[in-house]
């Protein structure tokens, strides 16, 4: 297996692991969004990698651009919800989110 491809795949995997680790490790709502962003970086890399491998880099780039636009809107919505929650709760701690229990 080509060494650069192997390193790219490994790097993507490490970024996803870092994101997931961050997700389960923190109490801070903003850091949860940072974790998701980290995983999305890995996905971006994978998308360009796939285009790089099969020779269809132009198409892969259009995917990445659309994905980035969606990613930004999700980040903005998430930030909006967090700021609103902060106005209600006075902090951004996930342990405060216990109003919904079954």
């Amino acid at each position: 297996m080509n060494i650069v491809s192997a390193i790219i795949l490994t790097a993507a995997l490490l970024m996803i692991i870092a994101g997931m680790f961050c997700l389960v490790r923190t109490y801070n709502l903003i850091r949860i969004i940072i974790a998701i962003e980290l995983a999305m970086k890995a996905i971006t890399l994978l998308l360009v990698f796939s285009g790089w491998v099969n020779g269809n880099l132009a198409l892969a780039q259009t995917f990445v651009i659309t994905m980035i636009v969606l990613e930004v809107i999700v980040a903005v919505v998430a930030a909006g919800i967090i700021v609103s929650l902060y106005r209600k709760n006075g902090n951004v701690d996930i342990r405060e989110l216990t109003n919904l229990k079954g």
Partner: protein
Amino acid sequence: MQQFFIVLCLVLMVLAGGAAVMFRSMLKSSISLAVASALLAAVLFLMGAYWASIFELSVCSGLITVVFVSAVSLTNTDRCSEVRVREHKARVAVLPAILIFAGAALLFILFNSDFNIVASATPASFSAFKEALWSLRQADILGQIIVILAGTFAVIVLFKERDNI
């Protein structure tokens, strides 16, 4: 030589990503994320994806960092990132452990098969990119317009109208 730079940038990107996880300060975390994003943009550029690289650099590394920094400053929570490790050591370790194990197994299989991945791409010319975007992906462009509308309404609902209840 180009391959060496790709590998170098990837290593630095993973380090920056790790830093974003480990920093106690939210501000430093956001900035590490921006650095990781910028390094990813460099990797994309070296792989020949010039336009994706520009978007990654300006939007992800720029705009998203601005969003995060404003969120951090609006909530005054720069240093309140308590860490769960101390309370649930076992639970916190499980998911990353599974992922690391699965990833290692996958890489082991990949390295030991006659599975071969070689880059066959040359850097995409602008005309090829333009062709792909405007004459193959109209549905996605329509989707982008709709999602920007959705983002506008989201900002109106979440930021503008905060008076009642």
